[in-house]
Structures are given as C-alpha cells and as structure tokens.
C-alpha cells in the first residue's frame, strides 16, 4: 500500500515539475499561481479543464498571475483597478533610476516611486497601480522603463487584456 502511494506521489510530482518546466520563470512561482493565471483569462475554464484536468473553481482564489515577480506585467482581466508590485535588486554600482511609462489603451497606469537610488545589492519595491478607463476585451499594451544615471536601461512590457471600468 505504501509503495503504491509513493509511486503515485512520484508520478504527480513529476507531472507537476514537467508542467512547471515549460517556462523557467514559472519554475520559481508554483503550479497554483500558474493555474490561477490561466483561470483568470475570461472563458478559459473549459480549455483549462481539457488540458490540465483541473477545475477552475478550485483556483479562483487570491493568487493573480500578475503577482509573480517576472520582468513583465500581464493582467488577463482588469476589473476596475489592481495594484501590482515588483521587487528589483541592483547588481551594479550605486545608481539613481528614474521611471517612465506608457499606459495601455483603456488603462491609466501610475508607478511609484518615480525616482529611486540603490547601492550595490539593495532592493526596491515598485508599485504599479492600474485603473480601467474603458470597457474592452481587446488586448492593449504599454511599457515601463527604468532609466539609470549610469546608463542602464531596464524595460518591462505591460499587457492588459480584458478591461472593466465602472
């Protein structure tokens, strides 16, 4: 009995690792986060069930795919507003960065802070506030740029698919 359970456990572990190895970044964020992201796409439930055997009713909880600390931001469904945070680490020498951005169509974006200084190894949390300004289900795209005074330029693509405003 124990051997049977152990074999089953190994199979499930391997399955989960395989799924997560599809994208190296996702290897570091977890199966459930990824499922929540897929399930957050409008009307994806039946496709998710077909491909993964998982019911989206179990994954509509708190985790958003956009909360993964990836060098990009994708919001599948922006219902009025959302705050997304990203943690950055400076691996170069002391540098002061200023932040610029272009908002996706139908969305107002605010990033704070707009200016920060980091010594080598220091971290900074960036808060990005999204507000839907129109109703649309067509994907729109923007960009956040971090411009360092020592010449480093860091780009973050921003995508918002479904937008729901008041």
């Amino acid at each position: 009995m124990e051997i049977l359970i152990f074999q089953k456990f190994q199979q499930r572990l391997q399955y989960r690792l395989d799924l997560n190895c599809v994208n190296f970044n996702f290897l570091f964020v977890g199966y459930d986060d990824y499922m929540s992201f897929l399930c957050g796409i409008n009307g994806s439930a039946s496709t998710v069930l077909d491909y993964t055997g998982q019911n989206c009713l179990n994954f509509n909880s708190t985790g958003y795919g956009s909360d993964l600390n990836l060098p990009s931001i994708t919001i599948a469904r922006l219902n009025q507003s959302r705050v997304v945070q990203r943690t950055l680490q400076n691996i170069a020498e002391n540098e002061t960065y200023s932040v610029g951005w272009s908002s996706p169509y139908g969305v107002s974006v605010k990033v704070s802070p707009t200016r920060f200084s980091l010594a080598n190894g220091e971290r900074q949390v960036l808060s990005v506030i999204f507000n839907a300004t129109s109703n649309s289900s067509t994907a729109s795209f923007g960009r956040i740029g971090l411009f360092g005074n020592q010449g480093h330029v860091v780009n973050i693509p921003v995508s918002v698919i479904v937008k729901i405003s008041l």
Partner: protein
Amino acid sequence: MAAPHVAGLAALIKQKFPNFSPAAIGSALSTTASLYDNSGKPIMAQRSYPSPELNQSPATPFDMGSGFVNATAALNPGLLFDSSKSLNELLNHYIYNVYGNFNISEISTTVAV
C-alpha cells in the same frame, strides 16, 4: 533559431554571474531586449498567411515577448527581477502541495531534477 542563440547567451550570463538563478538569467535577457531590429526599425509581426510581407504591423509583447535579445546589455543588466525562493524551498513547496508535509531530504534521492 531563437532558442539555441538565447540558450548560448544564458550560458554566457551564467559564466559571468555563477550565482544567478534561472529567473535572474531570464530577467537579464528580457529587461535589456530591444524593440528595434538591426536596421533601427520597429520589430514587425506578419498578420496574415496570404501575402504576409504586405500585412505587417509593429509587434506587440504577445508577438515578440520583450523583443530582440541584446547580448552586450544582457551581460550588464543593472537591475534584476529575481525570486527569493531557492530550489530546495521550491521543492518543499511542491512536495507539501502534492503529498502533505514531507521533508525534502527523505525523498531527495528519488526526485529527478
């Protein structure tokens, strides 16, 4: 032929920064990528199967991800978006989710990674 080139660049980054995680290497490649091709024009995406050359528009992140990789810039990324989780923490997280509270050392010889 993007994948073999990017894999080679990932190896170069790992050589310069041996302590970089896979997420950190991906961050360095992505944040420093360019939106322009080597003639300085925006990267374009083909929008139809018939006459693809006549049906092009600037590529979106869904077409091109972060853009064309820039090897020199990727080796000096400045800032990193990394994950604080180590591989062991991660494996413990999976194991906990799959089978309850297991210690990684009890099963680590059976985990193929």
